[in-house]
């Protein structure tokens, strides 16, 4: 990650960086950053496509496991989900996580703080969070353009497990919650990386985050399975909006008022995390004492 940023920034050239005060110039900078990052990501497209297909393999085991559980239960539904819903749910959380997971973002930021590389952003008129966000968008666009094929293949093979195409409202809400999941994942991880201004090393924090999201984001099982008290706890964290919520929306499990409410809360978390990341950046750069060379 860090190497990628360094290279992109060198490619940008100083001229582009200096002419940034007007909006068209700013847009052009963003476009340049996006294009370079996109080109870089597409270098490894073969590995990407194979890796994406591979990532469905663990789901195969989960699907067999749930089949065995349903068979032993002898009842058509579990926590309101049929067996078909379970399969569809797993595939949809894969989709949600393709939007919300940000491999290497927080650790990359912390590494830049530790190595002193972050001070470039203090001198250059490029905003760190904006720059990283554009890189992520490019990364994701490149990823989707390659991963779309394996995803489409798997979804097509499993089409019988889905209740059919969702209606327009559900689909629109689902897409909105996917985009929000991307933003939430980005700013949440960026905020954790920025804590590196105080802690230098955030890997222990990231470990706790990984542990919590293993259970609370819902990518291991539909959160509706949790007993009552846990349900309340889960609804108090932003983690469920990273995987569970978009998947449940696309499955049609959340509708009407609950859907509007859920989207509003998700958007609220995004705004909260943007504010937190901005605040941490502002405080952190004041606290920063430029380690490394």
């Amino acid at each position, binding site marked *: 990650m860090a190497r990628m940023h360094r290279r992109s920034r060198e490619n940008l050239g100083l001229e582009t960086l200096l002419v940034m005060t007007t909006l068209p110039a700013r847009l052009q900078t963003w476009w340049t950053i996006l294009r370079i990052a996109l080109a870089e990501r597409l270098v490894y497209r073969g*590995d990407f496509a194979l890796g994406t297909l591979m990532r469905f393999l663990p789901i195969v085991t989960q699907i*067999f496991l749930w089949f*065995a559980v349903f068979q032993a239960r002898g009842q058509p539904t579990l*926590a309101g989900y049929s067996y078909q819903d379970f399969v569809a749910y797993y595939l949809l959380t894969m989709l949600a996580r393709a939007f919300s997971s940000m491999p290497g973002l927080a650790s990359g930021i912390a590494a830049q703080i530790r190595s002193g590389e972050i001070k470039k952003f203090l001198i250059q008129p490029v905003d760190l969070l904006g720059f990283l966000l554009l890189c992520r968008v490019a990364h994701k666009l490149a990823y989707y353009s390659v991963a779309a094929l394996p995803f489409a293949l798997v979804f097509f093979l499993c089409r019988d497990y889905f209740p059919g195409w969702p209606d327009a409202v559900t689909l629109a809400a689902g897409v909105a919650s996917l985009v929000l999941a991307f933003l939430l994942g980005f700013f949440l991880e960026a905020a954790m990386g920025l804590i590196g201004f105080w802690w230098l090393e955030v890997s222990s924090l990231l470990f706790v985050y990984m*542990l919590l999201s293993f259970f609370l984001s819902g990518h291991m099982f539909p959160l509706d*399975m949790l007993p009552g008290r846990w349900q309340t706890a889960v609804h108090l964290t932003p983690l469920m909006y990273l995987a569970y919520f978009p998947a449940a929306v696309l499955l049609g499990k959340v509708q009407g008022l609950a859907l509007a409410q859920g989207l509003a809360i998700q958007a609220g978390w995004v705004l909260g995390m943007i504010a937190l990341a901005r605040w941490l950046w502002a405080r952190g750069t004041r606290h920063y004492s430029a380690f490394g060379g």
Partner: protein
Amino acid sequence: MQHVAVYLRVLGTFARNSLIRNMMFRANFLVECLSSITWTLMNLGFYLLIFRYTQSIGAGTGWGQWEFFAFLATTMLINSLVQTLFMPNCEDISDLIRTGGLDFALLKPIDTQFLISLEKIDWSSLANFFAGLVLLGVSLVQMATRPHDPLVLHAWMVLLYPFYVLCGVAMLYSLMISLSATSIWLGQNRSLYDFWFYITNFSRYPMEIYQGRWGTPLRRFCTFIVPVLLVVNVPARIIARPVAPHGETVWPLAALALVATVVSLLVSRWIFLAALRSYRSASS
């Protein structure tokens, strides 16, 4: 015999050196132990949640909660042994090949496969081994003391269990060293390493869950071709469910596991030697 003694002494030195290295960063060591145990607890939580909704994994398979937890404990024992002994080494093999570091290993007057498979021992991974022992103990006590259909532990079960755990470790090791050795041909084995992770994923559940149009061929493939399903299933059946509810005993599978262990060790040895023959030093 003297040969074996020399290898054992070298292994002892590897273990001591690794322990010294681990103990240089004691806090880090403790954190690693704790974090791997926490992961395990999280997994346990997931299965506890599943058993809130069902009596057993699969209808009439006999894998109730405590049987399955004994199965899970077996998975932990086997995986932690593989991670302690072989994982840190096999991870490095592709680096050894890319940087030409393998030259040094080839020059040493000791079997190359032995040297590069066991040089580093990650003691912190043993934390999960002890966690597995505890879970196994608890599960066995629960099964032995329940009023309905209690488990009767025979001497042969207690004797054969550790033996088949070691067989499982040997099978996983064979798979791992074979995949690592292919990086001599391919130069890079990043996705192969992922492949290893994904394929061992299949070994984590009782083999009965793989059934039906897709499951049966998958089960046969993972039993007879790449025997990952035998790794945990055989020892777990021996200790927790030697006879299935419908009367099937563990013996045919146990015999197969024995054959599979020997064959996979031989095949992996052959793959490793074949790969070594086409090694051309990479650096300078």
